[in-house]
């Protein structure tokens, strides 16, 4: 196992190098550069443009720029942004990352749960009306033209009905009095949320490992759930940060629901296919022959084993949350990593564009590795050497 890990790590480094180089070449080859912004203003003299090019290192030959870039990259320095001079790229990423992570991790959890549940249902009832209609609805929502769909939902729930806010992630009039950094609050949401999930996961695992009797296990689960809920509710209602966090969560409802609706279809169909394959296995037949109730066979035997590809897909989906849904972020005015990348590219801010892309790449590579290890961990038939 360790040899495999080591080999993979080497491969990751090499892949990253190739990826970063390709990113650099492509971003570099864009016509023009950020200094063209001066051209729109005739009052700025040409010397100023020269000065800017020198300062940003854009007047150096390409191979020098490439070497500098690679050197910086492998010492962990992503450079200084051109369009937000002189803020370091890493600082900009750190500023945007929590917003993206908070929204899209929650959304990913939601749509995977929904997809899992629905996929399980319709696979069991293959060929029926439920299967048929759920598939069509799932597919239509999956392929729906997202910008239009998101605008529509925003219009219905935000504008017409007024239930939810129309975009943005907080309410300035509320926040201005506290002068608390919003990244802190986002970090708080992600941190507390993650801790809660981890705690529940550990409790669940322990419950299974210790082979406790079912009644006791249920009590422990419920107890843990209750405890976590109580703590979260307390934090949200009686601290200032909690107040601000509630504001953010309130603004997060509509984008999260939108993402869930447009994404669950894929997971649902994946789960369905996986279930259908598993259903043909002997142990399912054996379970049915034993006389177990239908639901038990479906949930405890079939679904549990069909979960494997879905779990790996989940880990990968989490990785790509960093990329951020550009569409969601634009329509809901949720400035995250996706918008950062879009703006960086449109404004020809090379270090920022490259930095954001490389960062996403690292994330994805690591997630890929985690997914593979998880796969091996979950399926005893798979071994790496």
């Amino acid at each position, binding site marked *: 196992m360790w040899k495999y890990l080591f080999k993979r790590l080497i491969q990751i480094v090499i892949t990253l190098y190739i990826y970063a180089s390709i990113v650099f070449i492509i971003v570099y080859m864009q*016509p*023009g550069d950020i*200094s*063209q*912004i*001066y*051209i*729109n*203003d*005739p*009052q*700025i*003299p040409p*010397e*100023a443009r020269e*000065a*800017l090019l020198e*300062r940003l290192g854009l007047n150096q030959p390409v191979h020098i720029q490439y070497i500098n870039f690679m050197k910086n990259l492998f010492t962990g320095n992503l450079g*200084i942004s051109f*369009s*937000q*001079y*002189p*803020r370091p790229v890493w600082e900009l990423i750190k500023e945007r990352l929590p917003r993206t992570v908070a929204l899209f991790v*929650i959304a990913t*959890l939601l749509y995977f*749960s929904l997809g*899992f549940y629905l996929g399980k249902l319709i696979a069991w009832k293959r060929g029926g009306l439920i299967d048929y209609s759920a598939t069509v609805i799932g597919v239509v929502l999956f392929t729906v033209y997202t910008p239009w769909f998101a605008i529509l939902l925003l219009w219905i729930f935000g504008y017409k009905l007024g239930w939810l806010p*129309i*975009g*943005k992630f*907080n*309410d*300035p*009039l*509320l*926040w*201005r009095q506290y*002068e608390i950094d*919003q990244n802190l609050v986002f970090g708080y949401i992600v941190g507390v949320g993650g801790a809660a*999930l981890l705690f*529940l*996961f550990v409790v*669940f695992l322990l419950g299974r490992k210790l082979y406790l009797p079912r009644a006791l296990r249920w009590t422990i*689960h419920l107890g843990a*759930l209750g405890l*976590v*809920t109580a703590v979260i509710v307390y934090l949200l209602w009686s601290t200032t940060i909690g107040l601000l966090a*509630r504001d953010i*969560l*309130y603004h*997060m*409802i509509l984008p*999260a629901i939108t993402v869930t609706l447009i994404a669950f279809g894929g997971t649902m169909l994946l789960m369905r296919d996986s279930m259908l394959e598993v259903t043909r296995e002997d142990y399912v037949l054996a379970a049915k022959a034993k006389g177990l109730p239908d639901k038990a066979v479906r949930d405890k035997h079939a679904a549990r084993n069909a979960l494997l590809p879905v779990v790996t897909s989940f880990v990968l989906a989490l990785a790509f949350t960093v990329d951020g849904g550009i569409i969601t972020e*634009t329509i809901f*005015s*949720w*400035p995250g990593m996706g918008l950062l990348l879009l703006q960086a590219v449109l*404004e020809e*801010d090379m270090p920022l564009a490259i930095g954001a892309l490389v960062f996403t790449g690292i994330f994805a590579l690591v997630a890929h590795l985690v997914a593979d290890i998880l796969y091996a961990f979950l399926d005893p038939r798979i071994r790496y050497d």
Partner: protein
Amino acid sequence: MKFVRFAALLVVGLLLVVGAHNQAGAQGENIFVAAIHSDLKGVFCSLSASTGANNTVWNFYVWGPSAHMSLYGITTLGQQPFPSLAKDFATPFTQEGGLWVSTVELLPGVKWSDGTELTAEDVAFTFNTFATVLPTGRTLSLELGGGWANPAFDLIDRVEAVDTYTVKFYLKEKPGLAQWEFTLLLWDIFQKKFWEPKFQEALQSDDPVRSLAAIECPGEPSAAPFVTKQWQPGAFAEIVANPNYSFKGTIATEYQDADGNIVGYEEQLPEALGGGTRSAGTTSGDGISVALRTEEGPFVDGVIYSLFGDQSSAALAVISGEVDYHFNPLGYGLATLNQLEAAEGVRVIKNASNGVFYLSFNLRKSPFNYVEFRRAVRCVIDKEFVANELLAGQVIPAYSPVPPGNAFWHRTLTEEEKAEACIGLSEEERLARARQMLEEAGFVFEGGRLAQDPEGNPIGQLELLHPNAAYDNNRNIFGLHIVDRLQKLGIPVRDVPAGFNNIVTLVFDRQDFDMWQLGWGLGLYPDYLEAFFHSRNTQPGGNSPQGGVCSAREDALTGCQQEFDRIADEFLAEQDLQRAQELAREMQRLIFQWAAYVPTHYVQQQDAYRADRINWQGLEDKPILDGLQGGAAFVGLVVKTQ
């Protein structure tokens, strides 16, 4: 696995619980909430905000009303320079030794937000710092770039604080209006006490510009109506009223004559500044009436700039009442405009914007080096049709690079010129007239297609670079119209839609093009006429990629370029406003005559705000170049009636 479901249930439950959340707004304070739809750049400080590529209009909106005053200001309606921090107009330049000298007296009693007084030390410090020559050989002004870049600082030898309220400027050359009244005297004044240590430290470091641009300074001492407070990136920025704003209570009056032209300006200073009056122009007499009288604020406790994702959601926020005003540099789409105008309590005011969109030619190539060809192209373009029909009245046909909104400098066409431009003719008449022009000049048509120029060179496939539908569909439609008409005329032209960066690269950097369409954002003083048409700016990277005001061929025949160069140089050096106006008008006449630019259209500046909550003491009913958002001091006037 059940835990995933539990997790999901938890999240859903939380969200439901949270859904009972009420939006808590802070009441009690008088806060002006404005919407912006693009975030600030750089770090939160006035210096960084205008540096390099950070210099966006959004930064201007936030830092306009806060942090910095200048020796002169520009009057709101008349758009004329008038003393602000200066007590009176600067003395005319005289020669002392090899240098040109002018003295400026400061108004005593002006305070910074931290309570200290603004003195000549601050002024001298500011100018000497920006004029500092760095090891690269360029001034700090040029090195910082962006809004700080101005060649006027190359002229400064030194600036001295003679006593507490007197400043003496020593310049290497005698400056024209462009450098003096419209640049140096309008420059932001920085507080020496706060900034000198920071500048010293930065100048010692390896990269002074980077160190300076990295300085964060919320709450920077300000002599302006507002002081900056905080910036939450991605969410909002906040500025608060300056309790020590010395000019609060100033009554400003602008006078007009019987024709409505602004002819005079008068200011009554508040007690804190001595209560005197200062004025310029004609303030009384026959036919003179008050055009506008306002009292300077600030009348609000603070301003919040709330960030929205795009123009539409910001407009929606005005309609829903979430914000009081929307900073909107680009004009609304027709549908949004209609909604705003129809909404209760919302008012949209429309003004001329200081910018022009144009078509131009590569004067170095045939057939563009023939003025008859250029005039023929100008003739077939039906700007009124495009503006009023195709673009539903959203743009205004343009005939000069100086927008009519800039009334002092704009030149209107004579009747002959209007006929020359084929204004009012139908499509067939325009095509016939253009054809006639071309044939008389010696162009040869073969089978309806333009085949040869007067020298006998064959005419190949020509290309028009224009903004594509994604970048700006209004300009795309204009470009398509132009190509359509030219093709009907028989000119073999192809339309090449492209993005902004591509057009700029091909035209300005590589100078590899036939015809192109773009636009300019303009300043108040039309020294850009020199920038666009003087022969010294025709090299790659310069602002005259088309090659000046007429082609080399024509210059050899008639001396048109030399004549223009002479007038433009005289204009730049001119110190008398009236004479400068004459010269500017003459330049525009030549530009029209030689048709190197065919200006296509101007756009409107549209300000949407909640008229049921705020007003500008009558300013909003007057015509203002660049609208309310163009005037950095306007927030000093905002009255919130809630």
